[in-house]
């Protein structure tokens, strides 16, 4: 219904474009004055006038639907003492009325036993309220039709009468459009800030249970100790002293990330050099998109590749040469992740290597340098900032990666720098914190936000550095 109405609104708005334009074109010019704006703008003007108010009213209706419902149903004429009700009682009765509304219009013979008794237990005014609620939906539906069809048509027709040769709509239209665009970008920014602040607020709640220093500097991670706490209870921070030390998570994250970069940097850089300097354009056109597919494979696929294929192979290989490799080693997760981020390094580095001007290569060749000397001593140093930028972007992708480590890395916090041992990561622990069956206000759950915030800040800083470097580099040659 709503979508149908929305479609109608689009059609109506669209037809008003032609209506407005034609109206402007049909104006009989008096004197030698011409139209104040281009004819198209009269069309745009009507479209905006018709479309925007309906859209805004629709949003309000959508946002406050439940409020309108209550206002309509819970009138003081039916329930004279409603002003004295507590919130709980109000909610209870509203609930009952909602249930009643589902059955109140069904013929008595078709009702189930329980439903009949519910009807019998209800007061007269509750039944009336239920009938009102049942009719609310159709009223709501009709109001949408009015908003989407009648209102635009009336608005459009009446405002189109204002169109005359002196009405300059162009600045109005442009102002409205600029504001729509501005609004959109503000929304995007607000959402980012919203995410950031919701992280902060929840993290603050967490830090009411746990000391700052205990979180950032303690090396013991045993979140299960927080089981004992029930919500709202104030607890001695001593109990949680050794529960939420994030150091092993940080080292685990860095360990897995290092393994990943150990794979991605050499492979990515080598393929970037090959693509940019040696491959014929035909090979490049085929190979580059194929490499980029690596980044497009769902991470869950890498996850089970690491857990089910890579880890056993590594373990068997370790056994055969007498090294003990854990089934949940940081190595397996890091290797899979490294493969995933190869394209971040190779694609971006390929672009920066290719953007090194050919005049530099010519200059080197003209001095009698070979191709490999030219690449090593001129091209790569010139492209280095951009290449570093690609590394940093890849790192920040690696430490934020979740699915692979959830599937392939361990859950056990282990303060180690040995990739053959199990290790857990920040993202893994965020997931375990949130899928636990503890209530939300428990520090065991809230720690997810503290971890999320730290991760957010870490990747943010890496990204800012990377983007600054890449941008600086671009400026140099453009």
């Amino acid at each position, binding site marked *: 219904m709503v979508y149908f109405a929305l479609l109608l609104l689009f059609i109506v708005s669209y037809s008003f474009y032609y209506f407005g334009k034609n109206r402007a074109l049909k104006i009989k010019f008096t004197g030698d004055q011409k139209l104040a704006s281009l004819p198209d703008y009269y069309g745009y003007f009507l479209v905006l006038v018709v479309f925007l108010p309906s859209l805004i009213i629709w949003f309000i209706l959508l946002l406050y639907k439940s409020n309108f419902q209550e206002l309509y149903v819970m009138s003081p004429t039916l329930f004279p003492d409603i002003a004295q009700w507590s919130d709980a009682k109000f909610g209870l009765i509203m609930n009952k009325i909602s249930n009643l509304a589902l059955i109140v219009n069904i013929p008595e013979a078709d009702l189930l036993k329980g439903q009949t008794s519910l009807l019998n237990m209800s007061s007269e005014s509750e039944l009336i309220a239920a009938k009102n609620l049942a009719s609310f939906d159709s009223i709501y539906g009709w109001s949408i039709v009015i908003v989407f069809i009648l209102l635009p048509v009336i608005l459009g027709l009446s405002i189109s009468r204002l169109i005359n040769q002196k009405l300059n709509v162009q600045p109005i239209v442009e102002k409205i459009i600029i504001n729509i665009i501005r609004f959109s970008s503000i929304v995007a920014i607000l959402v980012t800030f919203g995410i950031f602040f919701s992280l902060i607020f929840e993290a603050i709640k967490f830090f009411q249970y746990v000391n700052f220093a205990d979180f950032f500097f303690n090396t013991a991670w045993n979140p299960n100790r927080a089981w004992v706490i029930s919500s709202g209870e104030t607890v001695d921070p001593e109990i949680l002293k050794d529960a939420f030390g994030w150091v092993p998570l940080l080292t685990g994250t860095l360990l897995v990330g290092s393994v990943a970069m150990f794979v991605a940097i050499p492979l990515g850089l080598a393929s970037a050099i090959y693509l940019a300097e040696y491959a014929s354009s035909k090979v490049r056109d085929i190979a580059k998109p194929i490499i980029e597919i690596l980044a497009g494979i769902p991470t869950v696929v890498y996850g089970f590749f690491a857990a089910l294929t890579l880890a056993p192979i590594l373990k068997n290989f370790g056994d055969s040469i007498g090294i003990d490799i854990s089934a949940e080693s940081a190595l397996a997760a890091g290797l899979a992740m490294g493969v995933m981020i190869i394209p971040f390094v190779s694609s971006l580095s390929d672009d920066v290597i290719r953007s090194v*001007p050919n*005049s*530099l290569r*010519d*200059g*080197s*060749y*003209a*001095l*009698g*340098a*070979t191709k490999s*000397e030219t690449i090593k*001593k*001129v091209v790569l*140093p*010139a492209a280095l900032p951009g290449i570093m930028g690609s590394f940093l972007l890849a790192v920040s992708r690696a430490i934020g990666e979740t699915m692979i480590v959830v599937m392939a890395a361990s859950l056990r916090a282990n303060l180690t720098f040995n990739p053959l041992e199990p290790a857990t990561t920040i993202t893994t622990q965020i997931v375990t914190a949130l899928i636990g069956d503890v209530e939300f206000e428990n520090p065991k759950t809230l720690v997810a936000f503290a971890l999320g915030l730290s991760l957010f800040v870490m990747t943010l800083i890496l990204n800012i550095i990377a983007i600054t470097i890449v941008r600086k580099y671009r400026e*140099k040659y453009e």
Partner: protein
Amino acid sequence: MVDNNNFALKTNNVYVHYGNKMAINNVALDFPKNEVTSLIGPSGCGKSTFLRCLNRMNDVIDSCKVEGSFIMNNTIDIYRDDLPIENLREKIGMVFQKPNPFPKSIYENVAYGPKIHGVTSSQSELDDLVKESLHRAGLYDEVKDRLTDVATGLSGGQQQRLCIARAISIKPEIILMDEPCSALDPIATAKIEDLINELKENYTIIIVTHSMSQASRVSTKTAFFHLGNLIEEGDTSKIFTKPDKEQTNDYITGRFG
């Protein structure tokens, strides 16, 4: 004029094609030792193409096919299979139209060639060579206090002189210059022209230019190209005062090109 043995480079029967398109058509041109020869002609006539044949820079372009004989110092065929291209370019340096210093320090720019070819055996020898090259390029006094600064921070004219210093740092016999002043203002141009006049004591210079006055100021020999053909060559003074060919006359008097 000059006796037959005193040519740094002799070319004969030169044809160049880009794919199926002919860019140079049967050109024969000799370059006297320790003199400046300028190549002139309207845009697209093949001056750069011909110049780039002389240090085999056209080898980088896949579609480019070069035929003909190129004999250096009356003995060496520069397109011979067993002559490493790197050794050839050590002997024949090049300066490009747009200054192209590497994004390294001024010092490293000049030291690049000597390091690659291993011409110096110690750091102090290399320092001296860099200093000497900058000196001869007339740049040393301007940059002596900032040899470690990045070269891209120099002015366009300074960058071009740095590129010349870079080219002479490996002591080539011939220096090719493709419109070396076209990106520079008259003052920077005058400096480069003075420099060319000094350099010809020790080097054979072949310069492509669009400026007749530059050609007459710096060169003793001039060759006029048109549509891939060598129309006329000879003493600069003769070409610019009483050329044999009508086309040459039309070009230098500005009637076409």
